[in-house]
């Protein structure tokens, strides 16, 4: 048993693990005050069968999540005095960080998931039952929580139900998400998905205010999920500690109703645009630069991002937060505007569909431009990439050429034909004098590369259609 309930004072001896470099033992104590009132006595009560089952389940989850060697929890029941130990959580791991993180995570989860209640007796003789964790999930608490917005005729019961049935995916959990996540959770969105492969860094914190200084080095998705759960424990949160790519995009986007692009990569923005278009998902995309931002809402039946920019621009050409700098409040405001777009969209209110808003936060000028369908858009023009553009080769050419695999160095399998490997980003720094055919996993990256190099005046570059799946390479 990893989760023990006990009416006796807790005594949990650490178990020895030769591989453990870190062992953390946390004790939760009975303190003499709660929400400004003086506490003299505490009483814990549980629904023991369910509490033990839930408790064991979450300890197992922690073992897997943090790669622990051991984890145990003991929780007191019955009457406790000030200073008594109410709960002990122990975690052993190869390294200290996992052990610390696991202890905190387990403690949070106990409060949210395990049915244990406490009765606080105050100095004035009054006593009250309170849930050991956050607000109890009573049906009427939502009524109070959302009262102020349900008062709006545009929201009401129906609008609130629609918000609570909605599933919203945030791709990129950085500065934009710091602006969009709190109001989305606050508004009662039913489920949030978070996708990001980054860890929190100190240089993020001036704009990514979902995180605390102590979060440095931890997964952004996991810390953002903890933030969302603190704000509204009933919310469903799904975390994906991975970067959006051609391989996982469809799987990640498919189960959501709305998608927010909070990434800082043009490549990802255009990929997300293409995937959302294919799956018929509305997308709110935003980007920031120094003191300004761009935002647009792309509905399945309106013009898309590539109608605006038919050619996918290479990532390094337009500056980033790291190279050009950004005031921390700018992504916060643009992110909040993204949340506003999603909430309005769910409520059936007007959005930035078919528009592009340019937001200048130095002057507070907002310029709105009408976006229209563009016949040059490879996604919306209805023309297949292969027939529209001559350099998307169906077969390997008969003339003499160089074959270059532009996938990242660690991507498998290797090509069977003689070739060079130059990752896509490095290709932009090279001049290709001889006729050159680029190949990637699916033909998408190589096509963009060839298109961009052609736009820059290089006439001898080609992309192999369907990449590794092209029969010529089998």
């Amino acid at each position: 048993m990893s989760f023990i309930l006990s009416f006796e004072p807790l005594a949990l001896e650490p178990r020895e693990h030769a591989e453990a470099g870190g062992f953390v033992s946390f004790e939760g104590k009975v303190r003499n005050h709660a929400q400004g009132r003086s506490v003299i006595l505490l009483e814990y009560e549980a629904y023991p069968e369910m509490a033990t089952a839930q408790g064991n389940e979450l300890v197992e989850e922690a073992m897997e999540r943090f790669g622990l060697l051991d984890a145990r929890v003991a929780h007191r029941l019955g009457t406790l005095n000030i200073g008594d130990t109410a709960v002990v959580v122990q975690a052993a791991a190869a390294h200290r960080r996992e052990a610390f993180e696991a202890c905190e995570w387990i403690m949070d989860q106990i409060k949210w998931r395990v049915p244990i209640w406490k009765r606080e007796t105050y100095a004035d003789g009054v006593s009250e039952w309170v849930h050991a964790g956050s607000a109890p999930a009573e049906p009427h608490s939502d009524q109070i929580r959302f009262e102020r917005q349900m008062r709006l005729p545009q929201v009401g019961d129906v609008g609130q139900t629609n918000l609570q049935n909605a599933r919203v995916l945030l791709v990129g959990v950085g500065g934009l998400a710091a602006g969009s996540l709190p109001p989305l959770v606050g508004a009662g969105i039913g489920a949030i998905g978070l996708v990001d492969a980054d860890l929190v860094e100190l240089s993020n914190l001036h704009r990514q205010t979902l995180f605390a200084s102590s979060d440095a080095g931890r997964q952004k998705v996991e810390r953002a999920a903890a933030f969302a759960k603190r704000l509204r424990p009933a919310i469903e949160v799904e975390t994906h500690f991975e970067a959006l790519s051609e391989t996982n995009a469809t799987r990640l986007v498919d189960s959501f109703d709305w998608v927010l692009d909070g990434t800082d990569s043009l490549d990802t923005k255009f990929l997300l645009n293409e995937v959302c278009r294919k799956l018929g998902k509305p997308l709110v995309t935003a980007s920031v630069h120094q003191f300004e931002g761009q935002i647009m809402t792309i509905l399945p039946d309106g013009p898309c991002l590539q109608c605006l920019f038919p050619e996918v621009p290479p990532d390094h050409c337009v500056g980033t937060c790291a190279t050009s700098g950004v005031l921390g409040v700018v992504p916060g405001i643009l992110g909040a505007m993204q949340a506003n777009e999603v909430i309005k969209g769910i409520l059936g209110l007007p959005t930035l569909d078919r528009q592009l808003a340019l937001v200048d936060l130095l002057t507070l000028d907002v310029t709105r431009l009408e976006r229209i369908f563009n016949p040059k858009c490879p996604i919306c023009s209805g023309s297949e990439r292969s027939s529209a553009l001559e350099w998307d080769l169906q077969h390997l050419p008969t003339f003499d050429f160089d074959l270059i695999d532009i996938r990242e160095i660690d991507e498998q399998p290797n090509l069977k034909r003689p070739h060079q490997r130059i990752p896509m980003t490095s290709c932009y720094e090279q001049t290709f004098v001889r006729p050159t055919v680029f190949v990637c996993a699916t033909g998408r990256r190589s096509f963009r590369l060839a298109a961009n190099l052609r736009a820059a005046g290089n006439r001898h570059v080609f992309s192999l259609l369907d990449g590794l799946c092209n029969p010529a390479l089998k």
Partner: protein
Amino acid sequence: MVRVNIRYFAVLRERRGLSEEQIETSAATIGECVNQLVVEHRLGLPVSLIRVAIGTDFADESTPVQEGMQLLLIPPVAGG
């Protein structure tokens, strides 16, 4: 020569070092006009990656340049 107002956004504003200016140009089309600015000020983006709007509407690069036009130069933006 005609006078045209130019507004720069995002990385173009940064590279040009100002938000707005009035220029005199001999360019026949707005595409040519933007290309001249890209070359003269080393804006670092090909014309094909810059969208141009006249007033509040996007315009094709073949649109003829006219006296007093207000051109908005909008590049893609990546930061998040």
